[in-house]
């Protein structure tokens, strides 16, 4: 960055000296922005990465590189959270679930319903609507077992709606408190 600036200054003065052009003819150096935080699906980094080092690393890597770097760690974490994990309501074993979650992107439909989960299996992971109870969905997939009936005390936090009503029209989110 410093080198580029220096070069620009040198070029700028050369132009002035050679042709008396205004120095603002020199194009400004391109400004770059570096990734600092990342998010696709809710709560993935916070649940599945344990160490501060992993949490920070997960935020500055692109999704296409996440699976190779984090799937095994996610699987270990899943089995630590729920040692009795076999499969879940989506019939995913531990490897399948953590392979899906380790690449942290949110799938969204551009043609149909958009919801994290609304009870209709066909709509699963087709977006995230404001009112979706995403925490219960994730708790169910982690703790609920193949039928969703396992660990009943851990699959529903009993906070199932927001504390304000959403708007039907843009910008959709409720006014602040």
């Amino acid at each position, binding site marked *: *960055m410093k080198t580029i600036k220096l070069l620009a200054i040198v070029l700028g003065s050369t132009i002035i000296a050679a042709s008396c052009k205004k120095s603002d003819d020199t194009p400004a150096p391109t*400004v*770059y*922005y*570096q*990734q*600092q*935080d990342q*998010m*696709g699906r*809710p*709560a993935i*980094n*916070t*649940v599945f990465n344990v*160490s*501060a080092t992993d*949490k920070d690393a*997960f*935020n*500055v890597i*692109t*999704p*296409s590189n*996440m699976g190779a770097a984090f799937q095994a760690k996610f699987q270990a974490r899943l089995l630590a959270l729920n040692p009795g994990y076999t499969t879940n309501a989506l019939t995913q074993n531990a490897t399948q679930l953590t392979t899906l979650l380790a*690449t*942290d*992107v*949110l*799938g*969204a*439909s*551009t*043609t149909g319903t*958009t*919801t994290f989960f609304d009870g209709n299996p066909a709509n699963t992971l087709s*977006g*995230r*609507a*404001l009112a979706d*109870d995403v*925490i219960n969905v994730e708790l169910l997939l982690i703790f609920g077992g193949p039928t969703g009936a396992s660990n*009943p*005390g851990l699959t*529903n*936090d*009993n*906070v199932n709606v*927001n*504390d*304000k009503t*959403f708007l039907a*029209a*843009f*910008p*959709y989110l*409720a*006014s*602040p*408190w």
Partner: protein
Amino acid sequence: MKRKKLLITAMAAVTLITGGIIYAADHIDTPAVTGQAGDITDLYVFRAQDPNNLVFVANTQGLLAPGSTAAAKFDENTVIEFNIDNNGDAIEDLVIQCKYDAASNSMQVYGPVAPSEKGTRSKLEGTVTASAVVTAYGASPTIGTGTNGVKVFAGPRDDPFFFDLTQYKKIIAGTATSFLPPGMASDTFAGTNVLSTVVEVPKTLLNASGNINVWIETKKKI
């Protein structure tokens, strides 16, 4: 402010006890971004009121108490970037970049556009397609509309996330074995605000064949 600080302190204490587990959507998820303007709290993607449009929401700077919301600001050195993958390889084919301009106190939108550079480093792509003056705390929403049909809002909103985080932390810490029954459970995020950036985009601009993958990144000027 006190409330936010208290909450953060409480969470930090739990982090020490549980070895680093803080469970929220993406609120204060890592040491490096916590407390910074670029700390993402949530991503939402859903069909708009007009079903021909799709809505993208990026929330940042979570757990704002009402008393500290008016002072919360977007950062002019941070780009909030929606990344859109159209072919399932988790590599962005389009980006929608939202960059706060301090001089005009507005959120400026670039795209949707195919980025010239992909991955962890970006530059602003093309020209501003829509912009909206940031809505002040307590004011009714200012909505900007671009010539391509893109709508934008930026400003404080109620945090739409809900979760009994307090009880979850007790479960993880081993001091509770289950969530609380209805009526006793409480939303840890009730009464708190976030800084929202909401962008509504005509689906025709997304070059999509039915399904897309979306993620947000906050990127800081280098």
